[in-house]
C-alpha cells in the first residue's frame, strides 16, 4: 500500500493480487452455482464474511506495528455473549450494546497494548494470556450457548438497505472507507512508521509505545465489533469461539498481503483475504468437494493464495532491479 501514487511507479500492492484471486474464485463459484449472484446469495456471502473480515481488519492494525495479537477470539467471545445477554434487556439495546462492546474491546486491546508496549512483553505470549482470560470471562457471563440478541440487530444488520445494498456490505464499505481515511491520519501514518522501523520512528519523534498501545486498542475495538456482528448473524451468544477461527483471522491477514513483519500491507487486503477464505468454503461446496477433501483443499488453497500474493513481491523485485541501486558509499578526498 503505497503512500502516494504519483511520482515513481509503485509495485502493485499485494491486495490487488488478493482481489484478483477473489475475483477468480468468485467467478468459478458462479459458474457452478449461478444462483449465488442473486441479492440473497450475495447478502448471505457478505454476512458470512463480515465477522472474519472485521476481526482481520483489527488484527491488521496490530500486525502493521510488527506485533501479534491472539486475543481476537477471546474478545469476540466476550462481546458476543454480552450482545446476547444485554441487548434485549435495556431500552435502545442495539445501540447501547454497540457502545458497550466497543468499549470492552477497547479495554482489552488497551490492556494488551499496555502489556506489550509499556511492559515489554512478547505480544504472542501476552495476548495468548489475555485470550485465555477473556474466554474465561465469556464463560462466566454465559455458561452455555444461549441468550437472546435484540431483533433489530439480528434482522436489520443481516438484511439489505435501499433494496440493493446488504447491510454487511455497507459496513464493509464503511470499514474500508474508514481505513482509507485512517491511513491519512497521524496515527495511521505512525502505525506504518512504527512497524517499519521502531527506532527510526522514535528518533523521528513518534511515540512508539503509544502508537502500539492505540493500535492494540483499535484492534480490540474491531474484535468487539466482530463479536457484535457475530451476534447479529447467529442471534445468540456462544462463549466458545473455536480456535480455528483464530487461525482463519491470521490467514486472512496473510493472504491479504500483510506480512507478519509489519510496516507493509493494509486493511483492504485483509478484508479481501477474509472474503477469499469465505468464498473458498462456498466454492468447495459448489464444486462438489465434500468430506475430508474439504480439509485437503482448504490447505492447498491457502498455500496457493499465498503463492499468488508472492507474485506481487516477485514483480516488484524485478522492478526494483531496474531501478537505481539504493545503497552505496561515497568518495571523500582527504
Amino acid at each position, binding site marked *: 500500500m503505497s503512500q502516494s501514487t504519483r511520482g515513481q511507479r509503485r509495485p502493485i500492492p499485494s491486495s490487488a493480487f488478493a482481489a484478483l484471486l477473489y475475483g477468480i474464485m468468485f467467478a468459478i463459484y458462479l459458474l457452478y452455482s449461478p444462483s449465488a449472484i442473486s441479492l440473497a446469495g450475495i447478502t448471505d456471502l457478505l454476512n458470512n464474511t463480515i465477522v472474519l473480515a472485521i476481526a482481520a481488519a483489527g488484527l491488521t492494525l496490530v500486525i502493521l506495528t510488527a506485533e501479534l495479537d491472539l486475543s481476537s477470539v477471546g474478545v469476540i467471545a466476550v462481546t458476543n455473549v454480552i450482545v446476547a445477554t444485554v441487548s434485549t434487556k435495556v431500552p435502545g439495546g442495539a445501540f447501547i450494546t454497540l457502545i458497550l462492546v466497543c468499549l470492552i474491546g477497547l479495554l482489552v486491546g488497551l490492556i494488551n497494548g499496555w502489556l506489550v508496549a509499556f511492559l515489554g512483553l512478547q505480544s504472542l505470549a501476552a495476548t495468548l494470556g489475555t485470550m485465555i482470560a477473556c474466554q474465561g470471562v465469556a464463560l462466566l457471563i454465559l455458561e452455555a450457548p444461549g441468550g437472546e440478541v435484540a431483533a433489530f440487530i439480528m434482522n436489520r444488520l443481516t438484511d439489505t438497505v435501499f433494496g440493493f445494498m446488504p447491510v454487511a456490505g455497507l459496513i464493509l464499505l464503511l470499514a474500508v472507507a474508514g481505513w482509507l481515511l485512517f491511513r*491519512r491520519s*497521524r496515527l495511521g501514518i505512525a502505525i506504518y512508521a512504527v512497524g517499519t522501523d521502531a*527506532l527510526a520512528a522514535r*528518533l*523521528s*519523534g513518534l*511515540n512508539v509505545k503509544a502508537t502500539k498501545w492505540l493500535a492494540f486498542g483499535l484492534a480490540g475495538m474491531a474484535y468487539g465489533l466482530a463479536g457484535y456482528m457475530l451476534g447479529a448473524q447467529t442471534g445468540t451468544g456462544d462463549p466458545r469461539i473455536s480456535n480455528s477461527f483464530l487461525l482463519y483471522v491470521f490467514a486472512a491477514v496473510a493472504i491479504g498481503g500483510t506480512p507478519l513483519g509489519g510496516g507493509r500491507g493494509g486493511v483492504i487486503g485483509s478484508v479481501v483475504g477474509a472474503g477469499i477464505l469465505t468464498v473458498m468454503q462456498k466454492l468447495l461446496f459448489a464444486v462438489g468437494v465434500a468430506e475430508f477433501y474439504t480439509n485437503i483443499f482448504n490447505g492447498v488453497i491457502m498455500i496457493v493464495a499465498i503463492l499468488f500474493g508472492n507474485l506481487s513481491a516477485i514483480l516488484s523485485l524485478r522492478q526494483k532491479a531496474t531501478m537505481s*541501486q539504493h545503497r552505496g558509499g*561515497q*568518495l571523500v578526498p582527504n
Partner: protein
Amino acid sequence: MDSSAPILQATNLHKRYGATTALDEVSFSLYPGEVCGLLGENGAGKSTLVKVLSGIVIPDAGEIILDRLPYHPRNILDAKAAGLSTAFQELSLIPTLSVAVNLFLPKPKVNALRLVSMRSLEEEASAILNQYGITGVSPSALIGDLPLAARQRIEIVRAMLQNPRVLLLDEPTAALSEREWLFGLVDGLIARGTSILYVTHRLDEVRRLCKRCIMLRNGKKVLEASTAGMTDDDVFSKMAGRSVVESYPVRESSINDSAPPVLEVRHISAARVNEISFAVRRGEVLGVVALEGQGQSALFKALVGLTPLKQGHLVVDGKRVVIRSPRAARVAGLVLVPEERKSEGIFNDLSTAANISIPIINQAASFDFIRGKRERRLVERGAALVDLHSRYLPPNIDALSGGNQQKAILARSLLTEPKCLLLFDPTRGVDVGTKYNIYRVIRTFVREGGAALFYSTELDELVHLCDRCIVIYRGTVVAEVSEKELSPHVLLSLAAGHASEATQSMITANSRNGTSR
C-alpha cells in the same frame, strides 16, 4: 541576545549502561551562533551525548540549561519544543513512507478532519526541497527507494526545518558526497544565530566549520580547544589516547606474478553490473573506486553468489569456478566482508567467539559435537590475527564497539583461510585506531600469499593501501590506475566519470597535476 552567555550549557552529565560508563562527568557550553565540533572515536560517547541532549536517553546525573532554563527532555518532542533538533547518524527516516511525510514527522499538518492531505503536504515538501537545494527527489517518492545520500540530506533538512535554536548534526556527512551543500546550509544557519553541535570524526570538516571543538574519549571530555593551530597528529593522538601517531602500514609490494591470478573475473554481468573483467594477483590489494551507486555493491554480491550472474565466469587460482552461493564462494576461497555490518555482518544474539567460529565450526567439532576447548583455540587464533583482545570474546557481540565488531568479522573471514578477501568498505564507522589495525591485517594477509579486493569510500585509504585500483562507473570498469599513478584527484575525477573515455595518457596527465605522494 547576549552573545557571551551560552545558549546550551551541560554540567557533569553522567550516563552508565550496566558496567559501561558512556558519559563521565561531561560538561560543555554552546554559544549562540557558533559551530562547535564534537570529536571522538566510535564508542567515545558522542552518540550518547547527542541522544541525551535530544531526549532519547535520560542521563543518570547532570544538569542541562537551555536558553537559561533548566532542560530535562524526556523525549524528542520535549527537545523540539525547547528549540533543539537533531539529524541523527542512524537516519531516523521511515523507508515505507514518502519523502513528504517523513519531512513532517512526527506531526504532519492535518486538515479540519484531522487527516493529512498528501497533496498539500507534497506541495509544501516540494517547496522545502527547492529551498534547501535538493533536486531530483520527488516528494512522493518512498524514502526506501532513495539513495543513501538523498536520505541523509532529507534527514538534515528535517532537522533544520524546525528553525531550532540549537541544532545537533551527528555525523551528517557519513553518506554525503557533496559536502559543500551542507556547509552552505550551516553557514546560513550560523548567520541567523543558530548554534550547532557538529559531531564528526573528520578533521577537515571541523577545520572548515568550527572555531572550537570538544573531544570525548571513553566518555570523558579530554579536550576543549580552538581549532586554530591544532595539528592532525595532536588530534588523533588525543582521540585514540595513544602517544604514537598511527600510520598506514608500509606497502612493500608482495605481488607474485609467477602464479596465476588468485581471482580472475571474466566478463561478468549481473543486475547493475555490466561486463566487468579484472584480475587480482597473489599478494595484491586491488582497490575498487566508485562514487556511490555505481554497481560496486552488486559486483561484490555477485562475486560471492548472493546475486546470480547473468553471464561471464570466475577463475580462481587458474581454475574456473561456478559460484551460486556464498557457501560455494567460501569453498572456492572467496570471502566477503559485507557492507552492512549490523544486518549482514554480525549475529547479534551470539557471543563474539561464536560469531568468529561460525563458518568453520565444524572444524571444532568431533562427531558433530562442538568441543569447547578446540573452539576456544580456534577463536583465539583468529582473534590474534586481528589483534582482538580475548576479553571481548565471551560477551554478546552486540555489546562491542563497531570497530571491534569489524575485527571479529575479519577474524571470522581469515579463519576460513580464504584465497581472496572481498572487503566492502571495512572501515566505515570504525574508529581511527582500529582502522590502522585493519590496514595492517589486510597487508599482512596479502604478504603471506593472499589477495584482496578492497572497496572504500575514503580515497585516502585506497591511495595508501592498494597496489592498484580499478574504477567503476555505471556498472562497468572505466579505468585502471597503477600504484604509481594513485592519487585522490585522479581517482575522484575518474570515478565521477569525467574520464570515462580516458586514455592512459590522460590519467598520467591528471596524476601529474594532482597531489601525488
